[in-house]
């Protein structure tokens, strides 16, 4: 189980936290985003479109950073993963595979001006690549070592490195060919971030795609966000959900801003009506909302309520 609280210092250092200094709440963000989309569908006014876009842009900023931080964290392992893969190749376990992958995926695309240096083909290729980024953007300050921590910091802190770093992630994990870290899901995550950084995705589409990103067996943002309840079930359910279901779960302030302050879906009205009808079979006195609430929760009413 991933717990972003364990990485709180890292998240705080990179500004990937809310105003209270805690990791972002993924469940609240999901309710906000999909609620705004549903409300705009129900009431497609210019004002609502503006609000929906503002919500998307706010979440896109958070998710962009979260993807970069998460990918950078995973990418720390790339040096050892690359070495393991290289060792296997040298032992003949990956016979014939290396050349094919190298030609197919063209690491030179990511490898910047290191045209003839493939990180997997030379043991120090990745280190040299990272050092090249550092020298290009910050000058050669004498840092010769490329530790995993340095990889992490360079990748996250260097704004020029975002695009290159993400592209490197995509190519690296796609050609990784096994191992205990990374994998194709990380390549997918980095690719979504990369496409947003390059301007190929709008904030709204990016946020929607980002909610679907996964690592090993969970939502990608379990590494960087808090979440309440069964967020995965919620995200699965939303795909087939009716707008009313989503609007009822949107934050109250957003609902009021988009003109749905006292909105009740038809399904909720029907549910209430059914509950009232059942209750009146057993109670001849007036059924107050408090009594109904107790029945719904399965709490046995007190005697004084009964006739």
């Amino acid at each position, binding site marked *: 189980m991933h717990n972003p609280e364990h990485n709180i210092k890292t998240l705080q250092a990179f500004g990937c936290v809310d105003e209270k200094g805690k990791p972002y709440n993924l469940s609240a963000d999901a309710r906000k985003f999909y609620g705004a989309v549903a409300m705009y569908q129900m009431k497609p006014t210019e004002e609502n479109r503006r609000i929906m876009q503002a919500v998307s842009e706010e979440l896109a900023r958070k998710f962009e950073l979260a993807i970069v931080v998460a990918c950078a964290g995973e990418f720390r392992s790339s040096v050892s993963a690359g070495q393991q893969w290289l060792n296997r190749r040298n032992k003949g376990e990956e016979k014939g595979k290396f050349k094919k992958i190298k030609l197919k995926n063209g690491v030179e695309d990511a490898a910047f001006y290191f045209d003839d240096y493939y990180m997997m083909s030379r043991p120090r290729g990745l280190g040299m690549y990272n050092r090249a980024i550092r020298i290009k953007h910050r000058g050669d300050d004498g840092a010769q070592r490329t530790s995993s921590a340095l990889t992490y910091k360079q990748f996250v802190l260097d704004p020029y490195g975002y695009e290159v770093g993400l592209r490197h992630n995509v190519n690296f994990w796609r050609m990784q060919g096994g191992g205990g870290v990374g994998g194709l899901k990380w390549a997918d995550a980095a690719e979504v971030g990369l496409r947003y950084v390059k301007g190929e*995705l709008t904030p709204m589409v990016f946020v929607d795609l980002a909610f679907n990103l996964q690592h090993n067996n969970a939502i990608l943002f379990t590494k960087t966000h808090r979440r309440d309840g069964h967020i995965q079930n919620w995200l699965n359910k939303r795909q087939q959900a009716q*707008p009313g279901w989503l609007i009822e779960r949107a934050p109250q302030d957003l609902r009021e801003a988009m003109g749905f302050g006292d909105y009740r879906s038809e399904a909720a009205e029907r549910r209430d009506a059914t509950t009232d009808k059942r209750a009146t079979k057993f109670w001849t006195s007036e059924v107050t909302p408090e009594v109904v609430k107790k029945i719904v929760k399965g709490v046995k009413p007190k005697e004084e309520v009964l006739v």
Partner: protein
Amino acid sequence: MSRVELKGMGVVHGVVRGTARIANADGSNIKDGDILVSKMTDAKMVKGMIRAEGIVTENGGTICHAAIVALDLGKVTAVGVKGLLAALKDKEEAEIEIRYEEGQTQATVTVL
């Protein structure tokens, strides 16, 4: 020639008519003005969705991937159109009409 009418949920209002193309994995077979038809859409199809005049999917609800992209791009889109792929063949002419009916956005997909 028989007309087949299918119902689904609408996302963006309007009427479009064009050649329905069943999208391949990356949507590269969609040309400008086509209607993109698919069981579901995903991130790889976005470029095809941009070129398409309208989008129809067999599965999905009002906030599935196709609906979000359609809202953002302003494309006339119908989602959750049951029996779509059984009723529609590649390169057939089709029309999508989205309008409010009884407080809900209804989509009608007509295979012409």
